[in-house]
């Protein structure tokens, strides 16, 4: 019913606008994806303050609007009003480009993320690779911002985070290699469909690929520069890392990028390992609601981690990436490869 309406609407548009229709319609779809993400980002900041408050037996924001629901809007307005200060000796163009480059890949990656069997902006075959490529681009915003600020702390933060992201990307990539071996496809929609079965949640990839599920999620936390891997910011060591010199909306863009990355990784974790929009029990229908519920759960884990774990020391963090995660994920690639050749592989 909904689909028919959409199709007839598309047909009418095509007749009306001709060749201009496709780019226009794509733009509309992009806005339809990005606008809710931005809203979700805003409310993730509020949720974070609530969850961390509750864990610290506080109440959290509850003054602006009912239960503090207008708090993100107030924060956003505050940041909009503030002046953007460009430090002396900074490279002006790159200084402004930094935050934009930080946010851009975090949003661009959503192009291939399916929300349910039909809802996906671009159903490309190399979706998984595209996601990895976008994730690896995120580091540019940070490294450019850190260098262009002409500040020692910002530069140190940028170097730390660049090294961290490049290291954890490898483990993340190998974890995803296991997924694509299991699904035999790099299309995110096919990966979810590969987890379909008669046993609901037991068919999902997090069971055969459990170590990779953990590695992927922890690498995701490191990739998003979130606690306990937030050495790039490291308030107690290097003030605020790569965004020390940023104020106002330029700072807000970094903030948005961090949370957009968190939400992206939550969605990807639920697509790759938790069955996406598939229902966990066989007697309930598959729907986008499951997808959102899983993503919210993973997002909650991010906040829970931040409230629980103290920050990693930098050398220990590098050790975890190179000496634990990468060997572990390479071993598991071999294990999954061998396992798939045996009849014991039932996924």
């Amino acid at each position, binding site marked *: 019913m909904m689909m028919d309406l959409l199709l007839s609407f598309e047909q009418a548009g095509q007749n009306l606008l001709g060749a201009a229709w496709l780019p226009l319609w794509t733009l509309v779809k992009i806005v339809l994806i990005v606008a809710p993400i931005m809203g979700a980002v805003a409310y993730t900041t509020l949720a974070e303050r609530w969850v961390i408050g509750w864990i610290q037996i506080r109440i959290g924001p509850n003054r602006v609007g009912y239960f503090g629901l207008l708090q993100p809007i107030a924060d956003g307005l505050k940041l909009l009003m503030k002046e953007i200060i460009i430090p002396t000796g900074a490279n002006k163009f790159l200084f402004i480009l930094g935050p934009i480059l930080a946010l851009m890949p975090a949003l661009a990656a959503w192009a291939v993320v399916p929300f349910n069997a039909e809802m996906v902006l671009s159903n490309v*075959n*190399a979706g998984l690779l*595209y996601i990895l490529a976008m*994730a690896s*681009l995120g580091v*540019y915003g940070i490294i450019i911002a850190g260098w262009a600020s002409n500040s020692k702390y910002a530069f140190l933060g940028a170097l730390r985070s660049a090294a961290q992201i490049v290291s954890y990307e490898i483990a993340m990539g190998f974890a995803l290699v296991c997924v694509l071996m299991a699904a035999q496809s790099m299309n995110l929609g096919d990966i979810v469909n590969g987890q379909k079965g008669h046993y609901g949640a037991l068919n999902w990839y997090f069971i055969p690929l459990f170590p990779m599920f953990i590695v992927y999620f922890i690498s995701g936390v490191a990739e998003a520069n979130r606690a306990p891997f937030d050495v790039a910011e490291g308030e107690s060591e290097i003030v605020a890392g790569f965004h020390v010199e940023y104020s106002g909306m330029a700072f807000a863009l970094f903030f948005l990028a961090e949370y957009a990355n968190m939400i992206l990784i939550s969605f990807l974790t639920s697509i790759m390992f938790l069955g996406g929009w598939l229902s966990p029990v066989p007697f309930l229908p598959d729907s986008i609601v499951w997808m959102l519920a899983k993503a919210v759960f993973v997002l909650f884990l991010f906040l829970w981690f931040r409230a629980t774990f103290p920050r990693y020391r930098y*050398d*220990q963090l590098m*050790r975890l990436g190179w000496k634990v995660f990468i060997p572990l994920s390479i071993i598991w690639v071999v294990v999954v490869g061998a396992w798939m050749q045996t009849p014991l592989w039932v996924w």
Partner: protein
Amino acid sequence: MNFLDIVFYVFAAITVFAAMGVITSRNPVNAALFLVLAFCSSAGIWMLLEAEFLAIVLVLVYVGAVMVLFLFVVMMLDINLVRLREGFWRWFPFGAGIAGLMVFEMIYVLGARQTSDTVHAVTHGADYSNTKELGRLLYTDYVYPFELAAVLLLVAMVAAIALTLRRRAGLKTQSISEQVQVQAADRVRIVKQMSAEGTDSATRK
């Protein structure tokens, strides 16, 4: 001139502009960033040729990893531009000779191929997976060259590490794995201490 042609010329123009930027910009960081832009736009051109695997891998490997490490080094360098420029004219004939040779080679290679309007890249249906085909070729017809290249890279990697690894005597370093494996029992001993009668602050008058 259809939509794809326009996209191609836009990407080509950006690539040429960025490539010019790489060699003309004075600041090495800017040059490296121009190179990143050149990689990205050539990935776009490959995408137009339906080589999506190569395009994305170009972004993933070169832009996402190699150039980051490049920038890493370049940013930490303190480059003296004046020293860099001296001897320009001395080396100019040498550089010009190499450039001329490369131009000749490229004309020779590209000119030999038929490049008329009738030749187009092969187009495939939407369900055609470039990645799958590439993988199949690499692991069947070209498996030996592929494995050879892999071994070569491994040897180069080991050699690079072996050449740069230096152990100085008397260097004090931390052993992280030892630190991580410490358990509470190794560090803390909990002692049950009885408070003597009459000295407890609560009982003191």
